[in-house]
């Protein structure tokens, strides 16, 4: 068995390295897909499927068996108590038997920050989610310095504050379009009509992707980040490969189209591909398709789910804390601080994974080279050692900006300013228009141990009486 697997793996690696430059990228994705299928046929690779069962309370589980990789932990609202128990009793905790294999959980704020800053001992390669993605898409979020630094510098201009300043009025226009089309006489799904619409429109703009097809971006993002083997989501491998190949095809076409237009003398735009084509470091990125694919996937996935779920989470948090909604209406200048508090409270990405590069001691535990460790931002943001009353949502919380939802160190979120700006503008424009946004019933939560998000949330708007 083992032999067959390594032969297949070797074939895959050979395919991916040797032909990177010559074979169209969607063919490479298809080739990797065939390898996975072949493995499945010879019984080497059982696709993971998760079935939801009610989770026991944290105090009823022996400490060693506590498994925070369960993709239903967030949906069932058990995560507060599970992580509190880990923070108090086992801040660096080993789980030997998860469906994803053994892993460590790091759950206190200070430990997480220390680990995130130590790229030498804790590598982000080859992946930053708990399981393995069955395709080596090359993303710099999962690369160590110095390669990480080169790649990040090449593309960060697209979301650099300078570019954002130019984009602010455009963002506001798009937000207003979305808000002005909302019904006020009946309930509707906030996730679909607002969160997905605004982030989708923004992303289409950043990537200069055909505006009418923007829902594809949402679909790709959800499918890729929802892969069962990687995050406990509900995407089957086959669907993952099809979505990735489709994404690759679309963006290769977009690249070539832009190149042709540029050669005909059209002025380049401020979108990602134009920036890549205009920079010495990245103008030949198309010749390294898996890298090209990686950078795009990173922006599509990184910029989508996260901001979207913060847009939904903010409304939910204010509904659960009506006094804070009143505070906000009385003093809209608190919006920027509230945006940080929303991002802390929501923690859209629950963790990042690292791998120990050597045997070492950390938080009183002995970690072996090669061990996987998860830095649980979702827990660090609720660490009572760092935040007073951490589970409360307080829009004028003094140290809200110290949240760790964007991570720390060299990988600190590249899109943080864009995310903050989108949320700030959303709330500024919401307060202009509505007196109340009432959540109706319970929101539906995404199945994942990585993305803390919502698939549906019904709301009813009350227009401003003087408007």
């Amino acid at each position, binding site marked *: 068995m083992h032999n067959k697997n390594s032969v297949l793996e070797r074939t895959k690696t050979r395919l991916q390295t040797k032909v990177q430059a010559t074979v169209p990228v969607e063919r490479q994705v298809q080739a990797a897909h065939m390898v996975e299928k072949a493995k499945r046929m010879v019984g080497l690779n059982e696709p993971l499927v998760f079935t939801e069962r009610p989770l026991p309370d944290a105090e009823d589980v022996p400490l060693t068996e506590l498994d925070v990789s369960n993709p239903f932990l967030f949906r069932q609202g058990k995560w507060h108590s599970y992580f509190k128990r880990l923070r108090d009793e086992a801040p660096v905790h080993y789980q030997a038997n998860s469906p994803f294999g053994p892993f460590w959980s790091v759950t206190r704020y200070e430990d997480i*920050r220390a680990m*995130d*800053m130590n*790229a030498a001992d804790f590598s982000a390669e080859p992946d930053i989610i708990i399981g393995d993605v069955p395709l080596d898409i090359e993303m710099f979020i999962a690369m160590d*310095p110095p390669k990480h*630094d080169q790649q*990040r*510098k090449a593309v*960060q*201009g697209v979301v*650099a*504050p*300078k570019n954002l300043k130019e984009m602010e009025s455009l963002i506001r226009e798009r937000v207003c379009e979305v808000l002005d089309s909302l019904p006020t006489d009946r309930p509707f799904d906030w996730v679909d009509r607002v969160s997905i619409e605004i982030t989708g429109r923004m992303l289409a703009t950043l990537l200069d992707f055909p505006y009418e097809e923007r829902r594809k971006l949402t679909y790709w993002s959800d499918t890729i980040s929802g892969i069962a083997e990687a995050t406990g989501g509900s995407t089957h491998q086959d669907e993952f490969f099809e979505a990735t190949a489709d994404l690759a095809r679309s963006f290769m076409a977009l690249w070539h189209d832009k190149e042709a237009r540029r050669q005909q003398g059209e002025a380049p735009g401020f979108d990602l591909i134009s920036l890549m084509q205009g920079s010495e470091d990245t103008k030949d990125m198309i010749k390294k398709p898996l890298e090209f694919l990686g950078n795009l996937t990173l922006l599509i996935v990184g910029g989508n789910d996260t901001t979207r779920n913060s847009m939904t989470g903010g409304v939910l948090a204010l509904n659960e804390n009506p006094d804070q909604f009143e505070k906000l209406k009385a003093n809209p200048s608190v919006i920027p601080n509230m945006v940080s508090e929303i991002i802390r409270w929501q923690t859209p990405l629950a963790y990042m994974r690292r791998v120990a590069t050597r045997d070492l001691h950390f938080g009183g535990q002995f970690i072996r080279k090669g061990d996987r460790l998860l830095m649980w931002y979702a827990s660090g943001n609720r660490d009572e050692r760092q935040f007073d009353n951490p589970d409360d949502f307080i829009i004028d919380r003094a*140290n809200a*900006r*110290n949240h760790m939802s*964007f991570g*720390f*160190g*060299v990988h*600190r979120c590249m899109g*943080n*300013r864009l995310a903050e700006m989108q949320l700030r503008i959303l709330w500024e424009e919401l307060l202009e228009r509505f007196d109340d946004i009432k959540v109706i019933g319970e929101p539906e939560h995404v199945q994942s141990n990585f993305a803390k998000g919502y698939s549906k949330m019904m709301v009813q708007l009350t227009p401003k009486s003087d408007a």
Partner: protein
Amino acid sequence: MATVTFVEHDGTAHEMDLVEGESLMQIATENAVPGIDGDCGGEAACGTCHVIVDDAWISKTGARTGQEIQMLDMTPECEANSRLACQVIACQEFDGLRVRLPEFQM
């Protein structure tokens, strides 16, 4: 009283009392100097307290080291005298120190 001056990107200067033992980031944020965020609370982990030290002062403050180099390297506005303000601890000798702020923090 010893002072330190923060000069915003648009030239606006903010002269602040220098508190010995505090970092420049703390002095700036406690006095609400615009343009310094200090998101990580002073651990050289976020890169949002970037300042550029005047040439005349760099020998006193010293140049960036270790983790600071990593973080600042990513900033497009990084200059020879760039430092993270949270890693510059004020002392009496810094009386009259001037630092410039970049246009944007990361």
